[in-house]
């Protein structure tokens, strides 16, 4: 075998010039697949960056009943849990991903009588889950997603006009007060990855950009927006705020897009004091609940605003032009430092040490790129709970129809994908890869067959000196595989290089892409070499028909 491989190697080097078609075809196929995989991952990472930063984790953990699968719904039995709508004030990050989130709440298969206050049964259940997940070495932090609903309150906005200052109010009903994830604090610790911190950038980029690509304009010079959570006004909340009742509010949820230039929060040097009506936390035995009949009013000082940058929505307005619109997640949330939020709960009546209102656990991993790979192991640590990765759910949510509002794009391109088939783009990509490799394989096979036919004497000599027919065929296969390997390396390298703009523009760092390098290479190499091996059977078969007597007739 060693001899056959050596012969194949020598032949592939010697015939490299005549086999460039094979190398190029395989390189193109490998490039396309690498780009599809790597850019896809980069895109997913980038798209998820805002959600990861905003929610404070890469993985969300919640009770299994909170998000019923189709299987759960179809197999509901009369004596078991029934479909139950959990009201929207029940604070949970699932509202951004849940396929069955309506204005009226979430569709769940929650147990009889609950939940009324928290996704977790009691403090012990939550602490055990946190401890079990936190014990995994791959986990950097577990942050409970704590939120309380706002029943009433008015936020003052100021409109500067030639006629003077006009004050208007925005209702805070439907908003949530949430404990700010540590990564979004203004004084977040050094251990916080840069991709999850508040982004210091232009808070008012243009709504959209159109580039005439036919004129040779470089996309990278016009598309410079970032992903993540950006500080858009005032100051962020910080650990140094202690347990003061301060908050920063999502600007996009309170100021209409077209009014961003004219309207702002009416805030003095210390921020705007907001009087908010919140439900009191009552207790019935050991069970906690929101007592809406006995609300409590608190004053929270809004010291700053944030915007959650979401993805760039792109569409071609015509031939030779491209438009991009920056989307934002209009999350109706006010973020408070954890100590302040704890004090708020105390004011609302939560006894010390009792279960806070937790909608899910946000798990931040040491390496976000390994999230999908880690899921089976993480699930085993808390088998009674369900979990999803933020990146994947973001992709699915986007595929169903973006949760973010789109203003600029024409109606017909906003929801180009069938809502019921979120996986279509992935499958289409895979199908495209198969087709491409089919073509590349045929090119390689054709090229190799031609080479075999022009080198009949050479193969006849091998047979004449005692090489068996299948051994000669194996030499050809090795030759094709080596040429394909060259194509694979070229294509993969160029494909990865093509991911650099994604790395630069998505602010996700190298980690997510480098982390998947090995897996991507495995997939691309498997596809390239598998395709080559399969299609090399054609030139191999040709060698079987070469007779030894052809060696007598002279050289090629």
């Amino acid at each position, binding site marked *: 075998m060693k001899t056959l491989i050596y012969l194949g190697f020598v032949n592939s080097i010697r015939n490299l010039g005549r086999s460039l078609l094979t190398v190029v075809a395989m390189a193109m196929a490998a490039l396309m697949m690498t780009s599809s995989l790597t850019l896809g991952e980069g895109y997913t990472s980038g798209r998820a960056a805002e959600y990861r930063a905003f929610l404070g984790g890469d993985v969300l953990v919640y009770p299994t009943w909170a998000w019923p699968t189709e299987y759960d719904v179809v197999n509901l039995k009369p004596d078991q849990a029934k479909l139950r709508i959990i009201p929207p004030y029940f604070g949970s990050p699932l509202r951004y991903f849940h396929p069955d989130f309506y204005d009226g709440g979430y569709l769940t298969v929650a147990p009889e009588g609950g939940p009324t206050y928290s996704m977790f049964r009691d403090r012990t259940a939550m602490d055990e889950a946190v401890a079990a997940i936190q014990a995994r070495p791959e986990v950097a932090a577990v942050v409970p997603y704590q939120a309380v609903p706002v029943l009433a309150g008015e936020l003052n906005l100021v409109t500067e006009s030639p006629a003077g200052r006009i004050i208007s109010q925005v209702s805070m009903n439907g908003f949530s007060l949430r404990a700010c994830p540590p990564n979004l604090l203004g004084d977040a610790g050094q251990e916080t990855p840069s991709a999850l911190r508040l982004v210091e950038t232009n808070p008012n980029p243009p709504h959209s950009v159109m580039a005439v690509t036919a004129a040779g304009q470089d996309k990278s010079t016009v598309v410079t927006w970032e992903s993540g959570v950006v500080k858009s006004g005032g100051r962020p909340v910080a650990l140094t705020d202690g347990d003061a009742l301060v908050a920063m509010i999502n600007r996009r949820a309170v100021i209409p897009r077209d009014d961003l230039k004219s309207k702002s929060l009416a805030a003095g040097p210390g921020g705007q004091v907001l009087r908010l009506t919140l439900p009191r936390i009552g207790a019935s035995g050991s069970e906690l609940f929101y007592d809406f009949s006995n609300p409590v009013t608190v004053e929270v000082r809004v010291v700053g605003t944030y915007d959650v940058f979401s993805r760039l929505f792109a569409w071609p307005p015509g031939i030779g032009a491209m438009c991009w619109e920056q989307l934002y997640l209009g999350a109706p949330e006010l973020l408070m430092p954890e100590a302040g939020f704890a004090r708020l709960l105390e004011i609302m009546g939560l006894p010390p040490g009792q279960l806070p209102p937790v909608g899910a656990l946000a798990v931040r991993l040491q390496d976000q790129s390994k999230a999908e790979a880690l899921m089976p192991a993480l699930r085993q640590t808390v088998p009674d709970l369900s979990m999803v990765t933020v990146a994947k759910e973001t992709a699915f949510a986007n595929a169903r129809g973006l949760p973010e509002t789109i203003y600029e794009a024409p109606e017909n391109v906003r929801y180009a994908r069938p809502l019921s088939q979120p996986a279509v783009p992935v499958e289409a990509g895979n199908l495209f890869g198969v087709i491409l490799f089919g073509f590349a394989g045929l090119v390689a096979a054709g090229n190799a067959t031609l080479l075999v036919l022009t080198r009949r004497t*050479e193969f006849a000599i091998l047979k004449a*000196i*005692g*090489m068996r*027919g299948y051994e000669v065929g194996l030499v050809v296969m090795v030759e094709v595989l080596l040429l394909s390997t060259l194509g694979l390396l070229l294509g993969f390298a160029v494909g990865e290089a093509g991911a650099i703009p994604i790395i630069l523009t998505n602010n996700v760092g190298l980690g997510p892409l480098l982390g998947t390098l090995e897996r991507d290479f495995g997939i691309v190499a498997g596809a390239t070499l598998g395709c080559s091996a399969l299609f090399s059977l054609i030139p191999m078969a040709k060698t079987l028909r070469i007779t*030894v*007597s052809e060696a*007598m007739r002279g050289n090629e």
Partner: protein
Amino acid sequence: MGSSGHGLRRDPILRAEGLNKVYWMGTAVYAVDNISLDIEEGQYVVIKGPSGSGKSTLLSLLAGVDRPTSGDVTLDGQSLVRLSENELCAIRRQKVGMIYQFFNLLPGLTALENVALPIRLSGTPEWFALRHAANLLDRVGLGARGRHRPAQMSGGEQQRVAIARALANEPKVIMADEPTANLDSQTTRDIRAILTELNQDLGQTIVVVTHDTSLTEDADRVISIADGRIVADDVGGSAAGGQTV
């Protein structure tokens, strides 16, 4: 001359019995027509004849490269016509060394690798194959050219490499098809000398197909062919004043 000229009569190393090779070109064309012959171990046999007489076809039948339409070829006591393709491969690898008019070296390999290849195909360890190949190149006077590729060598040198390759697995018979046809007179003399030396010093059985009359001077036996038939079988060689049978 070879050992057959001096010693006892032994079983032939190569035997052809009623050998026919027929091509159908509208009518039956007999490239080889009912040829029977015995070649004894150590004999140096030259098969000569005009172009198209069927001598190369006969050689390919004797080497197990081609299959006869009818008749039998026995090499070292083993009938070739009943063997499968893989078995014939093994025979060619172990018992036959072929030398061609166009040298037929593998262009991508060095001289040393060309010679070592049949040895390695026999499953011999690489280090041994390369050492043995180097010895063989020394024997044909090309010890210093082992690292050169065929394109970097003259025709005579390439043919000498081909001879070394033919000797690689210590074959029972070396068969050469017009080995000097593409060579100048001096190189032809060199190749003749090597073949004669192999026959005389090692007792190597050699069958040469040629129309080069100079080669017949070295042979123990000269077989003349015309129209696929043996028309003369001069045992002892014409130069030695042998007898036509």
